[in-house]
């Protein structure tokens, strides 16, 4: 592997890792703060990708599609929390697993009913469709760099939200002691609803962002979900920082696994997880 190939793979690994982080952070936030295990989280990613596809073909503009899609996802998250999840906080994890499994089936079929089961491509916006020449034969697409930049910006934004704002303070307080926060007159129900909507939106946004690169296909959500579980297992449940490190590790393992052992590339991520389980069964980072 010469240097520019290595550089390209490294950039790909970074971009994939950051995208995973975006999806997984929603999963881990919702679990860490609300104690909900959400199998349907991957479906929101799929939903986002399909929104990018449908709304772009409808409006003719990816940017408008993304704005609409984000608003729609937030609304869907808000409604789901209000209608279903808010009734499950006191229940066993098993019920949450079951409910969200049912939701996956419904989301998949809804997608199939509305858009069908075909694979679709989403065009890269013209502004970002250029490539950067690395050597005479190798180049790197600007859009992938743009994706990484957006993910980093969002990660910083999230850090700021959780650590530096009043809302973030209430979120952190709510995750450690729900009753206490409620007694202080803070509307914890609303906060949970916002956090859940945020998680859904993050996943959907990641799907929109990835759509031009990965194309849009049935089952894409479940694939991401399982990798996100690996992220959470490696990073530690509820730890956003751990999710970031784990997602980047997985990005590296997956990307270079494809180069080094192409036949069994699907396995590298899981081997990484197995190794971490032996070393630290509770993940690299335990808590926020």
């Amino acid at each position, binding site marked *: 592997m010469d240097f520019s190939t290595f550089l390209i793979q490294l950039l790909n690994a970074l971009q994939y890792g950051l995208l995973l982080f975006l999806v997984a952070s929603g999963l881990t936030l919702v*679990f860490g703060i609300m104690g909900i*295990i959400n199998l349907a989280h991957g479906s929101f990613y799929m939903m986002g990708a399909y929104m990018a596809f449908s709304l772009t073909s409808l409006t003719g503009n990816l940017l408008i599609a993304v704005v609409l899609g984000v608003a729609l996802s937030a609304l869907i998250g808000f409604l789901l929390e209000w209608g*279903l999840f808010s*009734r*499950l906080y006191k*229940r066993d*994890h*098993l*019920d949450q*697993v*079951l*409910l969200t*499994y*049912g*939701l*996956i*089936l*419904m*989301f*998949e*079929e*809804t997608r*199939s*009913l509305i858009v069908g089961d075909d694979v679709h491509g989403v065009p890269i916006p013209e502004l970002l469709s250029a490539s950067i020449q690395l050597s005479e034969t190798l180049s790197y697409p600007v859009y992938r760099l743009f994706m990484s930049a957006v993910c980093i910006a969002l990660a910083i934004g999230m850090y700021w939200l959780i650590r530096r704002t009043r809302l973030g303070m209430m979120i952190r307080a709510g995750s450690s002691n729900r009753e206490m926060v409620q007694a202080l007159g803070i509307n914890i129900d609303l906060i949970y609803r916002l956090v859940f909507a945020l998680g859904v939106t993050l996943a959907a946004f990641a799907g929109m962002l990835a759509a031009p690169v990965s194309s849009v296909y049935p089952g894409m959500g*479940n694939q991401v979900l*399982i990798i996100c*579980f*690996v992220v*959470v*297992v490696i990073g530690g*449940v509820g730890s956003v920082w751990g999710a970031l490190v784990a997602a980047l590790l997985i990005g590296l393992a997956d990307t270079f696994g494809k180069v080094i052992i192409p*036949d*069994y*590339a*699907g*396995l590298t991520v*899981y*081997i990484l*997880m*197995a190794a971490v*389980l*032996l070393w630290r*069964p*509770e*993940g690299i980072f335990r808590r926020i």
Partner: protein
Amino acid sequence: MPAAVKKRRNALLLILFVLALFPLFGSAYYNELLAKIMIMAIFAMSLDLLVGFTGLVSFGHAAFFGVAAYAVVLVSPKYDPGNLLVVLPAAIFSAAAVAFVVGLFVLRTKGIYFIMVTLAFAQMIYFVFHDSPLGGGSDGVFLNVKPELRIGETLLLDLGSPSQFYYLVLLFLVVAYVFLRVLLRSPLGHALAGIKSNEHRMLSLGFPVFLYKLAGFVAAGGLAGLAGFLSACQFGFVTPEILSWHQSGNVLLMVILGGMGTLNGAAIGAFAFVVLQEVFSSVTKHWQFLMGGMIVLVVMLLPGGLSSLPRRLRGLLIGGGTHG
């Protein structure tokens, strides 16, 4: 013998009787459907040992089912019938062996981690068969000739014959049921119940909890392998889908729907699930929407599953005292 136990035993004998006589009256379609239900019942009961009796919510149980199914095809000769006495133990052993290795990893985790890690490991095994030439890729592999049992020149049992296969499945259903009942009343079974109820106290009493859980995990994996063996023999082909996470989700659904920790409930759940699947898919090709909707409704309106209804009512009358 207490009246309740006697009643249950009588009910089971009656069901056994009906199942034994069914092929004399049922059509080929229903015989096959019933055989499928019985296979799923074995599968669901094996998972119940983990979920219902040990408190381990595994979301990757299809892995063992699938590994055994692949083992059937890989062990059988390509154009001749495999020997039942070789193929069956090979299938069960490979499932149990995989369960042993996976168990070494996943049992280091607890609760929600366990759910996620079992799912991830099952997916890893899915990729092993999906990506490697061994499993024929996403198209899967065919079992051209079904196994048979032959002693010397005499053919005792041919799994290619639907009626013989039906009775073999019924036999194994009984064997699996009795095996689990015996296991559950053994010292091991009691220790597993203790782990489910209070793992921490089991440790402080001196039980090597990890080894007990591993034993339960391997037993459940091996039994799932028995179901996988039967499934491969029934359909004659194996695709990676058989160990996909949908399969794991479905079997978990059967256990929960039917009622955890009762064995009979798992079998009832398997029955209900397969029948619902048949009914829904005859209505629309988007039948999973109906299935998903039903799951959501059950969770929201009937916490604890369909089978919890009588218990919940009884609990209301007597008041309190339930746990776990």
